[in-house]
């Protein structure tokens, strides 16, 4: 039982990242009709916003300490972050420790601007082109962004730890009445799951309960009619593109303590998230979220030793097997609209 609960938690955690990326992907498809293969790169750039913030906060001045020697036998250079110099050691250290959550302040404007620039500068020129052209151009853009990040930050993963207070594990077994040490789960992963719920809830609330969201939903249903009513739907869709980029970026920021960011992490998630969107139904926001969590959970159960002993290698293919089954039996996906991508 405890093993099942653990894998369920794992699945929800994996599914959080899939759902957040897939939510943005499907939001863009639903509004602009574009299959955006650069969306994984948004996740990656979000993660590198956390790296950038960490580096900014760690900007230091250096003094030579003649009492200590470095590895070459020269007087050691001792670096002190300006933050600690300005705010005192304790406060400065606390700010440095919380650099990942603080990065959200940087990531939101950066991602929104990047999304808007991407949409206005490149993607809008491909609205009337075939999906294949859109995929090619956005995939190319993803590679360009990835290589730029590689040039600036290098190819190696960069550690970005969670705040010390949230870096440990919780003994959920003891909390839920099971034996101690049976369900031990990292605190940050639980926070990531809760964070994803907040973001997903926020996006849905924004679309459901604001005038802006209502217009966007109307535009998704019938773009032409909304335009005829004198509403500049293009501008709203551009903003939605920025919002989708910000959602992916936030998913990336908060993911950095789980896996050290590297330039390739967007591509690692892109294909899976695209499968999530297809399984959930192209253009269906609830479908993307539901499929994200569903596939995350199934992937997690596929990694259980008992399951792998039964079907070796299942952990590697389970998501694609599910995708094949769904596409064969229900081509529009679990919650897709009739007629969308059903051919």
């Amino acid at each position, binding site marked *: 039982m*405890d093993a099942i609960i653990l894998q369920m938690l794992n699945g929800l955690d994996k599914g959080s990242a899939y759902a957040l990326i897939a939510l943005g992907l499907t939001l863009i498809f639903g509004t602009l009709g574009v299959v955006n293969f650069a969306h994984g790169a948004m996740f990656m750039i979000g993660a590198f916003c956390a790296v950038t913030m960490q580096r900014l906060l760690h900007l230091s001045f250096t003094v030579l300490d003649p009492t200590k020697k470095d590895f070459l036998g020269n007087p050691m250079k001792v670096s002190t972050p300006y933050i600690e110099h300005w705010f005192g050691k304790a406060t400065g250290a606390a700010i440095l420790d919380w650099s990942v959550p603080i990065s959200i302040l940087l990531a939101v404007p950066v991602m929104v601007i990047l999304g808007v620039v991407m949409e206005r500068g490149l993607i809008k020129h491909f609205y009337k082109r075939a999906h294949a052209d859109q995929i090619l151009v956005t995939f190319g853009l993803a590679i360009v962004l990835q290589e730029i990040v590689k040039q600036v930050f290098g*190819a190696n993963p960069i*550690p970005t730890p969670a705040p010390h207070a949230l870096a440990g594990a919780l003994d959920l077994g003891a909390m839920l009445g099971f034996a101690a040490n049976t369900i031990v789960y990292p605190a*940050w992963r639980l926070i990531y799951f809760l964070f994803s719920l907040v973001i997903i809830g926020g996006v849905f609330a924004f679309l459901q309960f604001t005038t802006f969201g209502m217009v966007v939903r109307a535009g998704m249903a019938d773009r032409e009619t909304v335009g005829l009513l004198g509403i500049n739907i293009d501008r709203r869709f551009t903003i939605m593109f920025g919002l989708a980029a910000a959602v992916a970026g936030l998913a990336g920021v908060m993911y950095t303590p*789980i*896996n050290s960011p590297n330039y390739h992490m967007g591509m690692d998630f892109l294909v899976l998230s695209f499968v999530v969107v297809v399984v959930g139904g192209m253009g269906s926001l609830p479908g993307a979220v539901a499929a994200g969590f569903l596939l995350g959970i199934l992937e997690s159960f596929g990694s259980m030793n008992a399951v*792998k002993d039964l079907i070796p290698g299942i952990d590697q293919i389970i998501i694609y097997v599910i995708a094949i089954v769904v596409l064969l039996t229900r081509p529009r996906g679990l919650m897709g609209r009739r007629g969308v991508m059903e051919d």
Partner: protein
Amino acid sequence: MIKRDFTRRGLLKTGSVAAAGLALPTIFTSRASAFTNEPKGSTVTFGFNVPQSGPYADEGADELKAFQLAVKHINGEGDGGMLSTFSSKVLDGTGLLGKKVAFVTGDTQTKTDAARASAKSMIEKDNVLMISGGSSSGVAVAVQSLCQEAGIIFMAGLTHSNDTTGKDKKRNGFRHFFDAYMSGAALGPVLASMYGKDRKFYMLTADYTWGWTQAASMKSFMEKEGWQMVTDVRTPLAATDFSSYLAPVISSGADVLILNHYGGNMVNSLTQAVQFGMKDKQVNGKTFEIVVPLISELMAKGAGKNIAGIPGSSNWNWKLQDAGTKAFVQSYGKEYGVPPSQAAQTCYVQTLLYADAVTRAKSFNPCSVVEALEGYKFDGLGNGPTLYRAADHQCFKDVLVVTGNEKPENEYDLLNVAQITPVEKVMYEPDNEFFKGGDLGQCNPGA
């Protein structure tokens, strides 16, 4: 009166004979090449094929720096590094046999097909005489095999699988780095003394040649110490999130987790294992322990504070106090501002050893180089007295048992050398069960 008998047929005949005559020396010249890529000009080219992307990119970047430094020293630039401490004194900083050394680089991407394509291009387009590099044993085995077929020398960089000089060994290939068996032999007694004899261990293993042989070696040596294996779970090399594999560990009854992971894989799996609270848990009345059989300084840097107290083994460490190590650390440190990793040291040493073998053999012919390296004993390159065993082309030297530094004094002070296991304790016969099945075959000069 002069009669000219020009006919079309006659002209063709004469022309053909003349063309054949002119071509004759060229044919003889080309046939005169005794081996692949025999150098004709004033330079010879080495190929450095390293992972510049993928999970082992850290090691690849460091390997490349070391290769560049070695070439500089061979060509007489810089401070000479280990040339002054090397027991062989034939390298004088004037290049190789009167030629300057140049090099080309490639990105293996930690993928065998990409690595082979890159090596093939180096051999066919850049006319390299020797290829070095590694960081993935799968890649090393594949490139070694290609070099054997092409008649090129392969001086393996960082490759730790038993198979590289075991079942997949080749006459044209040589490995300076230690192997998984040696890690197990060095770590077994140390771990038993640190954590006791009554332990149950759970292994996560990278699912390719290195992981398999590392896991088999650890299982064998730890069971000899009385430990019991709970299970060995294979994880894909491309995996970045190990949570599904780590989640069942604590409740499995195991009280030790052995991570047969390297590079980015290990950084992620160790970080996530610590996030799962495995470093401070009490299981079976004992403190839960994590072991990383193969540790490098670069991985320690990537893992940050999580590496503190974690034991493992290393081929070399920059904090060793022998003359060769000191010379190399000075040279590398001045050039790049950081101490070298074990990956850098093995690649630097391999390049010097190849250059030394060429100079002693007075030939670039791969078969002469093979002859010069087989059974070669040397010292002064940071690992103490070392033997390149002729039977399998494996170097035998002391092995370091290291632990993650709990109180680092600076950002490079990441690993402590806990013990130097003498070579006698990690030596094995060429037909040892972990290495049997391979055949060096014949030297191939190519051409």
